[in-house]
């Protein structure tokens, strides 16, 4: 299959994903009735659907570790963040169990998800078994929400203070970078199922290996680098968002017109 053919045909129209997205949108509109910020929800749902039906999903499903990593990042960091941003500003999330309310729990949820699902056995199992894969997808979304609530909770007073959030996000970034560094430079294969493929459902190995130039080593390297650099940049972006929050509480600096 050529590259074009692949990108045109490799859409996995998983009805469950579409139903979840549709029901989610309807429920959101019904519950918040125009109070929320539906643009963010539409973004969240679009990324969610695209991640799971586009050719990215086909590639992640047994072909490329790096595609799997991209999917992982989108499901853990992007979709939950957009979802929380879509909630109405007045919504209190205080009802959540106290244990999950603790920043340490949120941090472990967000960072642990990365380490947990990249344990070689689990990484392989998620590709080999559809039910493990479904479990992984759901867990990433849930853990991502638990992570981001600490920083993005709709109510200002339920968020970490800006310095606290900086520490929270920076330590997450360092920890993920460390795993990314390990994956990038590891001389052994972390997720062996990608390096030793069992089958070729779509008949695209030829295209991937020779056309795109993805050797198994390079594939793992890109996966590691995705986790090391762009993923860390997402955390850093959230850190930079703390700066206007920090200074926003104070009135603007004196106007430049004031001179001696």
């Amino acid at each position, binding site marked *: 299959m050529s590259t074009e053919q692949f990108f045109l045909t490799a859409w996995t129209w998983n009805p469950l994903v579409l139903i979840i997205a549709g029901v989610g949108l309807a429920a959101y509109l019904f519950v918040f009735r125009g109070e929320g910020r539906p643009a963010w929800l539409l973004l969240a749902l679009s990324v969610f659907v695209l991640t799971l039906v586009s050719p990215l999903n086909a590639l992640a499903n047994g072909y490329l570790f790096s595609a799997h990593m991209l999917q992982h990042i989108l499901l853990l960091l992007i979709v939950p963040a957009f979802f929380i941003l879509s909630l109405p500003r007045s919504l209190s999330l205080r009802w959540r169990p106290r244990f999950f309310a603790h920043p340490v729990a949120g941090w472990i949820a967000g960072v642990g998800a990365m380490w947990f699902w990249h344990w070689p056995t689990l990484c392989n199992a998620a590709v080999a078994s559809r039910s493990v894969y479904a479990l992984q997808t759901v867990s990433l979304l849930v853990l991502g929400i638990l992570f981001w609530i600490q920083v993005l909770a709709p109510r200002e007073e339920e968020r970490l203070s800006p310095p606290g959030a900086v520490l929270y996000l920076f330590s997450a970034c360092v920890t993920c970078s460390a795993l990314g560094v390990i994956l990038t430079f*590891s001389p052994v294969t972390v997720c062996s199922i990608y390096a030793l493929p069992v089958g070729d459902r779509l008949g695209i190995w030829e295209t991937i290996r020779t056309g795109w130039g993805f050797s198994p080593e390079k594939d793992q*390297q890109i996966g590691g680098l995705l986790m*090391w650099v762009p993923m860390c940049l997402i955390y850093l972006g959230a850190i930079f968002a703390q*700066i206007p929050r920090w200074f926003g509480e104070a009135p603007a600096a004196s106007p430049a017109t*004031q001179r001696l």
Partner: protein
Amino acid sequence: MNEIATVLDRAGILTPEQRQHWKMAWLSTVDHKRIGVLYMVTGLVFFIFAGVEALLIRLQLAVPNSTLLQPDTYNMLFTMHGTTMIFLVAMPVLFGLANYIVPLQIGARDMAFPRLNAYSFWLVPFGGILLHFSFLAGGAPAVGWFAYAPLSETAYSSQPGVDYWALSLLVLGIGSVGANINFIATVLCSRAPHMTLRRLPLFSWMIFVNAFLVILALPVLNAGLVMILIDRLLNTHFFLVPGGSAIMWQHIFWAFGHPEVYIVAIPAFAILSEIIPVFSRKPIFGYEFVAGSTVAIAFLSLGVWAHHMFTTGLGHTIDLFFVASSMLIAIPTGVKVLNWSATMIGGRLRFDTPMLFCIAALVQFLVAGLTGVSHASAALDWQTKNSYYLVAHFHFVFVGLIVFAILGALHYWIPKTSGRMLSERLGKWTFWLMVIGFNMTFIIQHFLGLAGMPRRVYTYADLPGWAWMNMLSTIGAFFMAAASVLFVWNLIISLLNGRKAGDNPWHAWTLEWATSSPPPHENFHYLPPLRSRRPLWDVAHPDAPDPVVGSRGEIDQFKPEKNKTSIVAFIMSETGFFLVLILAFLYYNAAPQAGPNPHELDLFKTGLFSLCLFASSFTIWRAETGLRNNNQGKMIGWLSATIVLGGIFIGGQGLEYWHLFKSGVDVNSNLFATTFFTLTGFHGLHVCVGLVALLVLLGLALAGDSKKRPWPGLDAIGLYWHFVDVVWVFVLSVVYILPRLR
């Protein structure tokens, strides 16, 4: 020697009583102002050393095929020049400046920990002497300031120069971390009540942000230095084949080395942000952006080190990612340049020497930034790496930005430290000689580099155009030397006969100008009201004060306890150190190797001893509870239990070592053994340090000291002890458990 005392006396630095014992008054001082001056004087002394080295290098390169210097001598000179300029000139001078100014700017009496401050300072001369002693001990290091392996290994550098280099950098690194933990604690815990963090002058803010960068980056170098020392002194091969990796050294060095550039650049930005508004007679344009972009620069700089390694063959993929992320740094630095320019636009500019140096720094830094972006492109980097183009680039950063900013800062703040103005006329001469000399020396080197002249080669062939360009560069260097001599001369005559400065010679707006020049020992007799970022403007213009930042009488609620703060900062720093050692362990043990291996370790016994260590986290928590409930007996009991449990753990580890040694496993048996002993050994060392601290606490408690309230030591040491336990969780999993799962 009495003349020196007279000078210091006349400058108002010594009180009449101190004059009797002026040497002791300086040697034993814990006053932040004196320590600041000591830092800067030390920096100046080493600047002369490194400057002479630079002149020798330029003399050698003045003509083609020169035989003035032996190749080996030349190698030593550029190594010592680079190392000295960065670790013994730029860092001490900037830290000294910050030491002097930050407590004054935030209305504090002194640094948070005056004794730690003195200790951190004295490590600088100690490290400097250690480094320079190598000249007498068989030859200075000749491996470049980044000491690439395997050249820096014993097989290729058998003289002890590299050992002295590594030891001295270790000493200096510890001093820098100490000084910057102190800055963090000072800014967080010692501010005057109304000096909220949002009202911080930009200089103090940037030193504060920079301090985090120092405590996070230096331990990475320290870990690398420890590894190269173990390689050299214990015959292991972290960075040598078989098994070891020379590239690993580069990763470690540049993971430190890239932030290091910003560690010396951010204080320079801080200086510019302070001086440019004062001499433009306008508040800084976009305070929030200048402050915020510093945070962005600091964080980004920690993750882009691989762009120093494009030519090492990391591969196209890795290069691509780091090209992109490196170019991102241009955004926040660009924001800063725009803000400084916008501050000057429409201002009533006064071109006194401090301002001239800052404007020059801004212009030169722009050039440095542009060549920097060109290096971020891997394709271009391949062509210009290791050529004089690179030499020109980083000298534009280090001299054009940093040295110029430092000179601006010295002309600006020396009137405050001595009470005497520097001569404006000599200052202008210094400025023009410096700027002309600098550009003569380094602009031309861009072209030399593009023409293919390699750096670090002691001479060159008489190729067309090379001779005159190099000669010009050498002449420029002597202009800069003349400027430096002129500056020192200016300093001396101003101390002797300078015009009296008064409290606020530049009509500046921050708190250091609200006290006398030089400030009294206790810094302030009273503080003006603090409502905005320019308290002295508000005092001078009650009719048109700056907008209030925060609420009018706002007192900062965020004032953590200083012992705890410093320990938290220390733990952050130590995390970096252990992270490197743990990653190194994982890397070196990814593939099975011949000889001893993790399966030979006794997991059961270690597990038992580990339980003792983990239990000690519980006991120290009980001790803290006892202290909180005012139950001395309980506190002392649980504290003793903690010490016993920690002791059992150390005993257990000793036993394990003993068994390994007996069965012939040595630190240099193979890389598993090397990384095992390094990682567990350094953890053990930290446990021992914790035990000493706990024993001191126990002694104090037995002597009744803990009846005092507050008694913050236990909480602080408790945090450290928990940290040591958490590190062991990771060491235990990585060393003992993980290999068994595969």
